[in-house]
């Protein structure tokens, strides 16, 4: 059993112990002084450290800036490169590759052509039972002398309906893309810009030669177009070609006499009504085959005597509908591309 020294706290051993344990020795002024010195020294060290770090970050910043500057210089050096030399090289390679590619395509297709059946041979595989049916039973089943008209407006009438819709939708797209919105956020455009956009500003037209010749030519053109449409089941032609002729007549009229005259009988509203009405009539007239099971194309409409103008059932009215759509679409394309809108 050891005896505890009453003066243990003040004994030398305790001091040593404290020193060893690193405890604070407050009763020794010398030691605390020393500690303060150490503290000051560490403070100085810290400051020096901070200074050092500051210089290091400064240097790093400078290096970064230098690097950035050099990269920017590189960029500047090669910025113009693709616009000058790069594009030239690329264009050369592209042109050579394009021509090579096309030559390859042509040679492959020519090779295919050399394996195709002989030109004009009646025993070719495409002269099978389908055209045989169209030709040998066509007059009996459709009443149209023109086999192509009988084919596209009776056997394949839905195909033609789709075609007229393609035309109509194309006209709608062009209308959306090119029509001028006159009510544009209330801002009034300058007179010159308006005249550039709208051809109506240059009217009335006073081209005497054009007007005389147009007044001579337009009636025969439109009558010929109507003839081609109405004789679609008897002779070459039909709704598409006749409609294109009528559209050409309307375009000539517009060019000779201007918008003011043509708007007396053909405006945007007329266009809408004629096109939509004709398409609706076509769709209704041909949709009966949905309800009759699509296989028995009996319309109940008399076929008439083949060769007469009033014959072949629905083909004549369908031709008229298609002709109206085509004529309106041609005229619509022209007016829209002339910037005026319809």
């Amino acid at each position, binding site marked *: 059993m050891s005896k505890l020294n009453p003066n243990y706290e003040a004994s030398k051993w305790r001091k040593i112990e404290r020193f060893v344990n690193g405890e604070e020795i407050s009763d020794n002024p010398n030691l605390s002084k020393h500690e303060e010195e150490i503290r000051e020294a560490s403070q100085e060290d810290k400051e020096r450290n901070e200074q050092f770090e500051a210089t290091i970050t400064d240097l790093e910043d400078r290096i970064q800036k230098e690097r950035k500057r050099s990269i920017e210089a590189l960029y500047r050096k090669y910025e113009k490169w693709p616009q000058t030399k790069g*594009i030239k090289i690329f264009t050369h390679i592209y*042109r050579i590759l*394009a*021509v090579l*590619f*096309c*030559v390859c*395509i*042509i040679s492959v*297709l*020519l*090779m*295919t*052509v*050399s*394996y*195709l*059946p*002989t*030109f*004009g*041979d*009646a025993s*070719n595989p*495409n*002269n099978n039972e*389908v*055209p*045989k049916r*169209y*030709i*040998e039973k066509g*007059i009996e089943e459709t009443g149209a*002398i*023109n*086999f*192509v008209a009988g*084919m*596209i407006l009776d056997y*394949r009438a839905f*195909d033609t309906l789709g*075609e007229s819709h*393609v*035309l109509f*939708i*194309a*006209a709608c*797209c*062009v209308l959306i*893309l*090119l029509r001028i919105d006159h009510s544009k956020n209330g801002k009034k455009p300058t007179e010159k810009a308006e005249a550039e956009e709208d051809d109506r500003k240059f009217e009335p037209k006073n081209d005497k030669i054009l007007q005389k010749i147009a007044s001579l030519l337009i009636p025969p053109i439109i009558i010929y177009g109507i003839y081609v449409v109405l004789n679609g089941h*008897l*002779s*070459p032609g039909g709704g*598409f070609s006749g409609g294109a002729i009528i559209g050409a007549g309307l375009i000539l009229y517009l060019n000779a006499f201007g918008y003011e005259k043509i708007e007396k009988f053909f405006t945007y509203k007329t266009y809408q009504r004629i096109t939509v009405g004709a398409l609706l009539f076509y769709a209704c007239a041909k949709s009966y085959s949905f309800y009759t099971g699509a296989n028995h194309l009996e319309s109940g409409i008399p076929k008439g005597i*083949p*060769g007469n103008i009033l014959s072949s059932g629905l083909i004549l009215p369908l031709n008229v509908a298609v002709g109206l759509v085509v004529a309106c679409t041609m005229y619509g*394309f022209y007016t*829209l*591309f002339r910037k005026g809108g319809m």
Partner: protein
Amino acid sequence: MGGNLLTNFYEAVAVILFGIGFTTLLLHRNMIKKILGFNIMDTAIYLFLAVKGYITGGMAPILTNGVEEQAYYINPVPSGLVLTGIVVSVSVTALMLALTIRLYRRYHTLDIDKMSMLAKKEDL
């Protein structure tokens, strides 16, 4: 190689015309010329279809002299298909031209490269 290249020279011409149209489409930077190339390709297709429907000595498929025999007329099916093709090509051409006009109004150029460069600049 099959031996029909010389007898099928109409088809060969159609194919070469198609290639010319395609080359025009690839080589020209002008949008209008691209559309012209597209139309040349369309024309080649019409020629090909019309040639496929032809039968030597055949009449146009409209009743002639009261004969209702297949061998007397040419094949009417490709003629109908050409009609479809013409209508669709007219529509597509009109649409492409309308788009070109809109692009020209926006960028004031018809060059497709310059156009895409300007579009990229606008994005930045």
